[in-house]
């Protein structure tokens, strides 16, 4: 192991090519991961912010808020189910938002809600909105009156909230009456009866069986489909496909990293056959030699991770605002773990060759 580390320190040039290739792959992994996280978080923030134990859709809505309607009668049925602690109406309207002093129209998701959560305060007064921080980045300020939709319904921003976007659109969280007004003036085709919402957010008593309560809700109404919060997040259009696509690309990239490492150390092992034979002849075990290769591989990968991480941080500074790149600590950790696994797996490709080196070949070898 010590010998392997000394080689790394004293002959860094030998590892420059594999280190460089891995740095580029780390940059790619973090960039892809950052894009996935940015897309995911910006699409799902509104649902993640609900602190819901259940999200209720009408059973013919195919788990879409915009196709769903929960009537006042259904809501009453839900509230009557044992284990249900609180029920709050929820509705969305996706519309353009004119911010004072900004030429470009921002994308907005006006969300009518009733229940405060850990990240959402109580609904504001009629005409007011808690805006997502994304709209602040686009120029909105507290006190601004933004105009929503083609009907230009005014909403006064009373505060900002974090991580509450829906389908990449900046959340504007309003009380139910304001949401109904926005819908009525901009989407008359989508208007719902008084007391109706697109969906209902359900809080379930801590001692109740959440799965059973959700099933009881659907049984009680006979016309709803209740999902857990995690299922509701997965049901957001495109999320599953987006996650699967990015995860596949990231997986392939990790595989390529493992291949690069495997190829490099396989070549290095070929070059070291004579040296390894000598080390085995003087008492070195195959396991000691393999451990040295793994140590080198992992350290090169760690170095590449640090460099690639720094490059990604630099990239974050210059990437245009429209690209939803978001680097999460969990992404950095998962990239580091997968790279380390790739480094170990790649190095182990040389295992068989090292084990098969005959120490006797050190004798009589003229070169």
């Amino acid at each position, binding site marked *: 192991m*010590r*010998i392997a580390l*000394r080689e790394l320190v004293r002959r860094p040039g030998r590892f420059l090519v594999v280190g460089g290739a891995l740095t580029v792959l780390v940059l790619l992994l973090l960039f892809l991961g950052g894009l996935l996280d940015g897309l995911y978080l910006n699409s799902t923030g509104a649902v993640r912010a609900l602190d819901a134990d259940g999200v209720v859709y009408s059973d013919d809505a195919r788990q879409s808020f915009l196709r769903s309607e929960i009537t006042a009668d259904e809501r009453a049925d839900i509230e009557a189910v044992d284990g249900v602690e609180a029920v709050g109406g929820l509705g969305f309207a996706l519309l353009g938002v004119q911010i004072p002093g900004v030429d470009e129209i921002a994308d907005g998701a006006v969300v009518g809600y009733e229940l405060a959560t850990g990240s959402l305060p109580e609904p504001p007064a009629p005409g007011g909105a808690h805006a997502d921080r994304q709209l602040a980045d686009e120029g909105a300020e507290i006190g601004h009156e933004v105009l929503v939709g083609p009907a230009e319904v005014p909403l006064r921003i009373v505060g900002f909230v974090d991580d509450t976007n829906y389908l990449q659109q900046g959340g504007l969280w309003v009380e139910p009456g304001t949401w109904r007004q926005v819908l009525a003036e901009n989407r008359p085709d989508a208007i719902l009866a008084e007391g109706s919402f697109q969906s209902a957010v359900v809080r379930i008593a801590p001692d109740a069986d959440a799965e059973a309560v959700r099933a009881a809700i659907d049984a009680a109404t006979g016309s709803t489909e209740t999902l857990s919060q995690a299922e509701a997040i997965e049901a957001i259009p495109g999320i599953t496909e987006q996650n699967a696509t990015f995860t596949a690309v990231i997986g392939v990239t990790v595989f390529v990293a493992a291949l690069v490492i495997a190829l490099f150390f396989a070549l290095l092992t070929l070059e070291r056959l004579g040296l390894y034979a000598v080390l085995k*002849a*003087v*008492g070195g075990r195959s396991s000691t030699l393999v451990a040295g290769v793994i140590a080198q591989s992992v350290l090169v990968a760690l170095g590449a991770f640090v460099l690639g991480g720094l490059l990604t941080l630099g990239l974050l500074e210059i990437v245009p605002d429209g690209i939803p790149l978001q680097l999460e600590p969990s992404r950095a950790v998962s990239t580091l773990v997968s790279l380390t696994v790739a480094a170990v797996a790649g190095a182990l490709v040389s295992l068989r060759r090292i084990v098969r080196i*005959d120490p006797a070949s050190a004798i*009589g*070898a003229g070169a």
Partner: protein
Amino acid sequence: MSTDAPAVQLTDVRKTYRSGDEEVVALDHATLEVATGELTALVGPSGSGKTTLLSIAGALLGPTEGQVRVGGEDIAELSERARTSFRGKEIGFVFQAVNLVPFLTARENLLVVAEMNRSLDKAARSRADQLLDELGLGHRAKNRPSELSGGERQRVAIGRALMNEPRLVLFDEPTSALDTKLGEQVMELIRREVVDRGVGGIFVTHDTRMTHHADRTVEIVDGVLRS
């Protein structure tokens, strides 16, 4: 391990390989004994079995038949793992191409043996320093092989072979890469180290001018030893 036992004792050793359907005899009933403090030269044409004999004596290979004892310990039947461990403790090697680790200093090249045998401690470091001093390389301890002359590299290789205080040291063409004068100096050093340290030594050579350094010369032809 007996201190009175010969450094190495090969008794009626045979080594055969299979080549297709044929059996190739590399070593044919070879019997050889090298006492402690004795240096034996092994000469013979290419393909005569020198390498096989050296490999079996050095616990790099097991014999097909016969008995092999190093320091009185029978190593013929040892497993590969046990042979590896035995080599690390009892055998020293000086290879034909010297084969020092190029990115390690002279001192670190000696310590490689201790590291490979998981015995790298203060005593090993002291021994490496002592050996370098005794071989006249104390001032070159921090130099890498590329910074050493051919003779110095060979002396480092000899130091490495002596690091584990072996019973037997095997020298594979130790002067093949050196000119005559340097070759003579290295052989004198090898002889001195073998005698002074009381180890058994076998050196393979094609250069018959070097055999006078040996206590005796053994010739091998077609796997058969002739004294």
